[in-house]
């Protein structure tokens, strides 16, 4: 297949064989089935039945996996939270799975950055396609660079290119761009990935120490006033680039906002206030904030972390929206098309390439549809409700809803129906989003943070949005969530919901051919059969995690204290 993108040629024809997949699911039956299915695709499979084990594995071998597939509901940690961690620390594409296709849940997944959300029972053909997420992410890295054209990051890139080569980037997305710029002659476009030697980017590993320096710098500067440059200066880590910091800051912000939300939920108090982007309209601004807090989400698993946003982020920072919309809007990406308007101001920066929402539009649409983000109809939806996050939760923690509000899906509206489109979703299996992609390539979700903020902003604007237009385009970030809230019930979500993908990180770390070895030493990180042995894993529930009560994951509001406690694990 294609591999033009630069995967090492020797592997080209074998690609995607050898894709290194980590599967996390507390259900031993599914673990066995998935393992078999993935092996049939000639992927290298590692199974795990506990989220924590999975994180350990990932941390031990930072570049040992290309993609993670995880169930949403697990006893020791919420799948969304795992998603968040993986995004923050490793920036790998993550696919969520569940037997629950409720739109809200799916949305939540997307919001948290899942690059796809599969419904159980999962079919072989869906698994065969997962390599596309890895590939896409890589390509997006390239594109991100392009979109950064004209953005200051370019300058950074130039100056930092040397740094890039050192491989210190976070996930390399920025670096790639940086690199690209540097080698202007390089074909940026996705080809770049192909040349391992030049594109070899080491991911920045945000160790506990490094992160602590980061946090310290942030606190010193003042959270409200931070900017990547300032942080970088304070941190005084020579090999770190501004892009690295910006990218990490984005994630951090999302992470914090999630925490905040959870806290807010408890206190029903507004969520994050990001000073930087005051909701534009704020009409509901405050309301939105709250809503954005998605507290609801958090509630469920705390994981709400938008942060994951990797993919989700539909929010592509679309700068277009003046940032207030930032929300996730994967929506009308079309609008955004262009190099994201990301104006790399501050955190927003291009870093977001990760999330390049770009094509997600396609998928987003589908998702959005669900949510009916309604800018069009929003009125009917919960948009209004969103602000209070009191989404009507149907008994299920709405997290999703809240989240949705954050995700404005611009443009999706075409599908929006007041009733949430159900299944109208055009879930396009696999890379369906082709056209969208083309346009959106720019989307990076970069600033999830921004999105986040924008979400807040958005909410307020949601109400307006509703009125506004169906053309989400400007809204980009229409909160999808709002619509979700209206959605009740289960919408049948197509099995394969493609969500925007993240910006591809190095697909295989520079795509070494060797990475793709088909043979994955059986014993090697196979670890795992964590899952299999663990038939009891599922019982963990309470005992195991002091941090989270498994069942609470599903339905109960997240207890912020618990959450914080678990933070330790963020970079642990």
């Amino acid at each position, binding site marked *: 297949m294609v591999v033009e993108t630069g995967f090492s040629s020797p592997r080209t024809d074998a690609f995607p064989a050898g894709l290194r997949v980590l599967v996390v699911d*507390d259900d031993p*039956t599914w673990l*066995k089935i998935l393992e078999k299915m993935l092996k049939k695709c000639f992927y290298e499979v590692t199974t795990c039945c506990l989220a924590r084990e999975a994180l350990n594995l990932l941390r031990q071998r930072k570049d040992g996996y290309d993609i993670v597939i995880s*169930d949403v*509901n697990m006893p020791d940690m919420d799948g969304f939270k795992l998603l968040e961690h993986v995004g923050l620390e490793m920036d790998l594409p993550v696919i969520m799975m569940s037997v629950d296709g409720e739109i809200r849940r799916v949305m939540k997944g997307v919001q948290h950055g899942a690059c796809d959300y599969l419904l159980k*029972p999962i*079919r072989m053909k869906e698994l065969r396609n997962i390599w596309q997420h890895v590939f896409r992410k890589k390509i997006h890295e390239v594109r991100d660079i392009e979109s950064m054209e004209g953005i200051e990051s370019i300058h950074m890139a130039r100056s930092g290119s040397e740094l890039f080569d050192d491989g210190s980037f976070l996930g390399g997305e920025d670096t790639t761009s940086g690199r690209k710029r540097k080698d202007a002659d390089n074909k940026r476009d996705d080809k770049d990935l192909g040349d391992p030697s030049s594109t070899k980017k080491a991911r920045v590993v945000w160790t506990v120490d490094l992160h602590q320096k980061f946090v310290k710098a942030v606190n010193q500067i003042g959270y409200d006033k931070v900017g990547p440059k300032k942080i970088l200066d304070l941190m005084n880590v020579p090999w770190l680039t501004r892009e690295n910091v910006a990218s990490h800051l984005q994630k951090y912000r999302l992470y914090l906002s999630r925490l905040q939300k959870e806290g807010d939920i408890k206190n029903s108090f507004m969520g994050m206030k990001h000073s930087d982007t005051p909701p534009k309209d704020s009409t509901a601004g405050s309301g939105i904030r709250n809503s954005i807090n998605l507290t609801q989400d958090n509630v469920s698993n705390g994981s709400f972390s938008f942060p994951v946003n990797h993919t989700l982020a539909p929010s592509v920072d679309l700068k277009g929206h003046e940032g207030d919309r930032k929300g996730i809007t994967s929506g009308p990406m079309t609008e955004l098309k262009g190099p994201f308007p990301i104006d790399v101001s501050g955190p927003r920066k291009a870093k977001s390439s990760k999330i390049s929402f770009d094509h997600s539009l396609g998928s987003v649409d589908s998702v959005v549809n669900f949510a009916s983000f309604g800018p069009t109809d929003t009125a009917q939806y919960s948009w209004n409700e969103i602000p209070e996050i009191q989404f009507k939760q149907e*008994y*299920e923690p709405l997290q999703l809803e809240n989240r949705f509000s954050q995700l404005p899906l611009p443009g999706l509206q075409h599908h929006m129906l007041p009733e949430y489109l159900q299944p109208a979703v055009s879930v396009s299996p696999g890379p369906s989003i082709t056209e969208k992609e083309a346009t959106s390539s720019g989307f990076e979700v970069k600033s999830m943070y921004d999105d986040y903020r924008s979400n807040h902003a958005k909410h307020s604007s949601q109400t307006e949005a509703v009125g506004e237009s169906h053309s989400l385009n400007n809204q980009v970030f229409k909160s999808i969530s709002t619509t979700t809230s209206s959605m009740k019930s289960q919408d049948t979500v197509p099995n394969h919901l493609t969500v925007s993908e993240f910006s591809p990180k190095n697909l295989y770390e520079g795509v070494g051919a060797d990475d793709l070895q088909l043979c994955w030493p059986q014993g090697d990180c196979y670890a795992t059969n964590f899952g299999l042995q663990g038939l009891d894993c599922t019982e963990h529930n309470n005992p195991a995690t002091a941090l989270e009560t498994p069942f609470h994951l599903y339905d109960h509001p997240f207890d912020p204290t618990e959450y914080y406690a678990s933070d330790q694990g963020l970079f642990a």
Partner: protein
Amino acid sequence: MERNPMRRQLQTLRKSLFDQGYLDDQFVQLEELQDDANPNFVEEVVTLYYRDSGRIILNIEQALERKPFDFNKLDAYMHQFKGSSSSIGAKKVKAESTLFREYCRSRNGEGCMRTFQQLKKEYATLRRKLEAYFQLARQAGPVETACRPK
């Protein structure tokens, strides 16, 4: 058509499981995964399912003994159970799970209990039928041709 009478019988039994709605397409997916490397894959998966899901059933039963019902917890358990049941294509069992979850959401304890009883019946019935099926399959001997009735 199978010439071997036992094979024919097996096929008939298999077909009835689908026709009567006990199994859905997922079961076929499992059969397709079975190969020389894992010649008893389907049976292994089913065995694993019954072992693991039995645990969840027990949890639900215990939860149903505590009053008032913790619907959130019950729903969570059932969600887990449903996920598991979807792995082998246990159609009727899944349907009961869905119903149970709806009752949880509407906080209908009576509905939950009723549905749970029904679910356990379906669960047990399917187990019996599958056990008979696998036993017959073993007796019928390996399939010479790769054809699997679909």
